[in-house]
């Protein structure tokens, strides 16, 4: 008896709110809950009162009422106005959640049946565990190796599907140290339920201590460099003098002129595609079919590492031969419709004005 009472007392009824977004969503949640409660109560009350007052014994003869356009318009428009508030409020929160701050710390997540693989820029790697510092915006870049997963941290009120074939992202700022659940919320097969993990929010000191323990195997970029060399990318892409392939030094986030006239930004999505399916976009002045297709040869994690390595490559020489080959870069929309998640800042269509830094 006593134990069952204790059990009842232990029922959690409301999740912890451990991120900045959690409190803003909770605000809307409570607004909606109050509106719902009041409306439900009103309707229940009306039903009970009418049912009692106009029960057949008390009121044997119904008074026929045709309707009332005024009333009906009222209870069409009134609720709609309240709903408009919810709409605008919800949209505001949602839009804010699409814009990671510039200084957000990047963490890479790969969903795979049935685990979350986490990689940090400093080379730390974990499975089903995510360590983040309190008070610092964290941006997750997420990819899937197989089916659709969905990355969700209820305590942060964040969630985004991880769809195979492109990068998805979300961001948050943890506000309360603690250990929170991390779930996959898109059914992904047999062990879907075991795609659970933990998010550890550490205060700055703890985080620094934890971090110093990690990264023994070198940074993410260093892991990428190992991949880069193992897969034989370095033979062409770093020292090529025969014009077989573009130089990757200083490429990241630069506009790239393609052979069909389009200009794209060399962002994560572009780099990923160029590794997985190099023939999809050919840089102006180069031939297709020279680079091997790495689809199936490299995991999504490996791709993330290689991209980190490419990011780390700084321009070696101020003006390589590529520089003179490239036509002037123009402001042009990315005229392809390739799948680039809209929530991914680097997927911007806006090309910068022409100031090639090579």
């Amino acid at each position, binding site marked *: 008896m006593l134990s069952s009472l204790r059990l009842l007392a232990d029922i959690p009824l409301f999740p912890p709110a451990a991120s900045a977004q959690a409190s803003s969503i909770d605000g809307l949640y409570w607004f909606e809950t109050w509106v719902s409660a009041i409306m439900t109560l009103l309707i229940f009350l009306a039903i009970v009162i009418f049912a009692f007052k106009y029960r057949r014994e008390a009121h044997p003869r119904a008074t026929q009422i045709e309707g009332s356009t005024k009333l009906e318009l009222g209870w069409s428009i009134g609720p709609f106005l309240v709903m408009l508030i919810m709409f605008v409020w919800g949209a505001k929160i949602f839009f804010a959640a699409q814009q990671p701050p*510039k200084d957000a710390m990047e963490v890479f997540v790969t969903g795979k049946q049935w685990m979350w693989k986490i990689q940090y820029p400093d080379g730390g790697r974990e499975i089903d565990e995510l360590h983040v510092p309190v008070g610092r915006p964290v941006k997750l870049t997420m990819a899937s190796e197989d089916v659709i997963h969905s990355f969700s941290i209820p305590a942060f009120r964040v969630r985004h599907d991880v769809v195979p074939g492109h990068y998805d992202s979300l961001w948050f700022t943890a506000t309360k140290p603690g250990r929170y659940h991390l779930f996959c919320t898109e059914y992904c097969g047999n062990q879907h339920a075991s795609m659970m993990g933990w998010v550890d929010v550490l205060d700055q000191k703890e985080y620094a201590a934890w971090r110093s323990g990690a990264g023994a195997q070198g940074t993410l970029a260093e892991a990428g460099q190992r991949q880069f060399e193992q897969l034989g990318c370095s033979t062409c892409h770093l020292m090529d003098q025969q014009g077989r392939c573009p130089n990757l030094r200083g490429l990241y*986030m630069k506009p790239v002129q393609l052979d069909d006239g389009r200009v794209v930004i060399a962002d994560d999505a572009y780099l990923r595609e160029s590794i997985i399916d190099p023939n999809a976009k050919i840089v102006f002045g180069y031939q297709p079919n020279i680079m091997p297709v790495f689809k199936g040869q490299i995991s999504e994690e490996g791709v993330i590492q290689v991209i980190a390595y490419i990011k780390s490559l700084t321009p070696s020489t101020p003006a390589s031969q590529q520089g003179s080959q490239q036509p002037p870069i123009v402001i042009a*929309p990315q005229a392809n*419709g390739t799948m*680039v998640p*809209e929530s991914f800042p680097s997927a911007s269509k*806006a*090309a*910068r004005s022409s100031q090639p830094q090579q």
Partner: protein
Amino acid sequence: MTHVHIPPVRTLVFVWLALICFTGLTSAVSYLELGWGNIVVALLIAVTKASLVAWIFMGVRYVTTLTKLFVVAGLVWLAIMILLTASDYNTRNWDYRPAPWSSAKSVGGSH
């Protein structure tokens, strides 16, 4: 029963001739390079041909307003499906915020 409208053979043959001509036309136009014009012209011709078939062969011209309404409803729903789906794909890459690394203004618009 309501009166039956019997189309004259002349009309039917004329429509047939028009359809054949349009088929030739649309094939010919496809060899010109008009950029986005190609698909527009191809679809315009296809819509014209389909309307001819519907209007005369299928007798939409002679049916009641109700049936016409149904036909239109079918097309409207098709449009809803294609346009709303396209609304997702064509706005996914819209840059709704200034790119974080530059002050260039957003470039929007579908293609």
